[in-house]
């Protein structure tokens, strides 16, 4: 027990928590933007793969790191535009369109990787973002050990909250997610607002993927996203579609994920390592069950809106 407390008190543990949380914060904010506008985006898993690959490929080709992040965001936005065309423009099933996007984005990325690197045994690497050493000595050791992308993720939380609750654009997003007919009556274009929210949210998902290849690791692997996108979809429900709670949810999830990694290596409890690896997924399901009773879904979520039709 004391060993466990020692682990929790040490800085490396909290550094790991914040690192694991970063892509989840970005991805969850992305899902949140889409769902607040009334559109489920199950494309996240594939968009993260595409962001991870395209951002990394740009940097591998000589682009500066931040340009790589931009490329990942644009890739995410492009798939977001396709999702918006299918779910808003054509009002197709949001479930099926999202799964289709995930399949398309994942297979295109894997195909692109194999075409670019037909015969490699060890994945080619790039020089990833460096920790923020300029924060050394300020007492913010946990933050100083992170890369600027973590700072970006943390800064986006109040920014998205400000956008949603303090700007006309945010009001429009929330309106089309709750009552599109009323929004249309107020002169808000449902199609344009939803499309903008999906494109912006998908861009964040792309950046979430780029964090994996340009910060957490320095190469692109198959299966590297490994369900993180689906976890974000669960976290948004847990967070009641609020940016602040989304940050809390991502940190809580990352805390348990880091804890299971430590327990696994400590050998304190003797169970197969797979049991530890299951815990994050089981916790996500548990979180969904716990908030189920009071989950305040955006009223128009998953309801396609066809103007003039009921």
């Amino acid at each position, binding site marked *: 027990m004391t060993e466990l407390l020692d682990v929790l008190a040490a800085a490396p543990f909290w550094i790991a928590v914040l690192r694991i949380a970063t892509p989840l914060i970005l991805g969850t904010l992305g899902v949140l933007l889409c769902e607040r506008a009334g559109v489920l985006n*199950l494309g996240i898993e594939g968009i993260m793969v595409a962001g991870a690959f395209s951002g990394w490929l740009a940097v591998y080709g000589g682009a500066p790191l931040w340009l790589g992040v931009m490329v990942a965001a644009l890739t995410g936005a492009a798939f977001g535009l396709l999702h918006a065309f299918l779910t808003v423009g*054509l009002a197709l099933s949001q479930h099926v369109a999202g799964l*289709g996007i995930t399949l398309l984005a994942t*297979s295109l990325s894997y195909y692109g990787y194999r075409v670019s690197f037909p015969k490699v045994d060890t994945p080619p690497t790039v020089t990833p973002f460096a920790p923020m050493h300029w924060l050394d000595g300020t007492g913010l050791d946990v933050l100083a050990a992170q890369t600027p992308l973590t700072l970006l993720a943390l800064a986006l939380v109040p920014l998205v909250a400000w956008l949603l609750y303090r700007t006309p654009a945010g009001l429009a997003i929330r309106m089309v997610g709750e009552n599109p007919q009323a929004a249309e009556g107020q002169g808000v274009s449902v199609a344009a607002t939803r499309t903008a929210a999906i494109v912006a949210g998908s861009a964040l998902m792309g950046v979430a993927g780029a964090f994996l290849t340009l910060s957490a690791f320095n190469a692109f692997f198959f299966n590297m996203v490994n369900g993180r996108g689906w976890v974000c979809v669960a976290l948004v429900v847990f967070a009641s579609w609020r940016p602040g709670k989304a940050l809390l949810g991502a940190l809580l999830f990352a805390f348990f994920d880091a804890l299971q990694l430590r327990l696994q290596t400590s050998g304190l409890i003797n169970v197969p390592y797979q049991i530890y690896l299951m815990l994050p997924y*089981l916790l996500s399901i548990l979180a969904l069950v716990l908030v*189920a009773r009071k989950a305040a879904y955006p009223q128009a979520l998953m309801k396609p809106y066809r103007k003039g039709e009921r």
Partner: protein
Amino acid sequence: MRLEKRTETSRLALLLAPIAAIAFTLLVSALLVLWAGAPLGQTYSLLFKGGFGSVFALSETLTRAIPLILTGLAATVAFKARLFNIGAEGQLYAGALAAVAVGGLHGGTGFGLPVWLLFGLMMLAAALAGALLLLGPALLKARLGVDEVVTTLLLNFVMLLFVSAMLDGPMKDPTAMGWPQSVALLGELELSKLIEQTRIHTGLFWALGLAVALWALLKYTVLGFDIRAMGANARAAAFAGVPVTRTVVLVALLSGALAGLAGAIEVAGRTSYVTLDMSPGYGYTGIVIAMLAALNPLGVVAAAVFVAGVLVGADTMSRAVGVPTYIADVIVAASLISVLVATLMTQYRLVWGRKP
């Protein structure tokens, strides 16, 4: 740009829709082939020949279609009732594990039961394992309103880790030199081959039989009517006296069982033991197949054969001209999206401009 409902669908539109979908898919994949620097015509012809061009190619395609038909049926029945089961992948592995637990463990004694009884128990256990794995998410949806998409998706990851733990532990094959695979099924339980020198097995009849059975169930039974009513409008169905919770539970059991059987039939017909890579995403591909078939059980058979042909053909083509096999997944994804759009276009027309 807005959509306007067509008052009637012309025969021309119904004919043009699938052609347009296929043309779009071929165009997307052509760009990718050119990117890889391979000759276009040769690549497509190898893809087709590899999937359908010979008896051997066809046998491989049909072998691959067997699990896809079953996971496609699992998605069909669930989606028809608006139970979005994305967990067929996990349910398939649950069925495969259950099949080996009944038909392979215990030192290959088979409990001293006659083969026909043991075979029945094996299939039953697999169906039950798949069904139970989906029962939890279905009850959570019906009772607490927990979104089943996320729970079934996450359970796939849990199940795959559980399989990995079992292959390291209780179900490990001690003779496999540390390779993660389960003990093998009793030889007598394996499904027999249909053609010598190929891998096509009698699981094909199971898949076809279950497709016809599901088609009849949806069309001619009360449960089938309830499922279709819930799919059309859940609230109206509830008002009309459809037992909603009971139907959701039955659909979940049926869908999970079909996916579980896919796992058992793969083990009994092809692999004879469970490995961590025995399914290259059959559960997820099943959803695409169900959508390509417009949730029609008989259409699922055709869609599964098409997708299987593309997957098998891509393997052959890739060995010959070096275009990565992932092109098969791109073709499947692009065809899903283009078929969805094309189907919609038969019911709606695009109108440019704002006011009607």
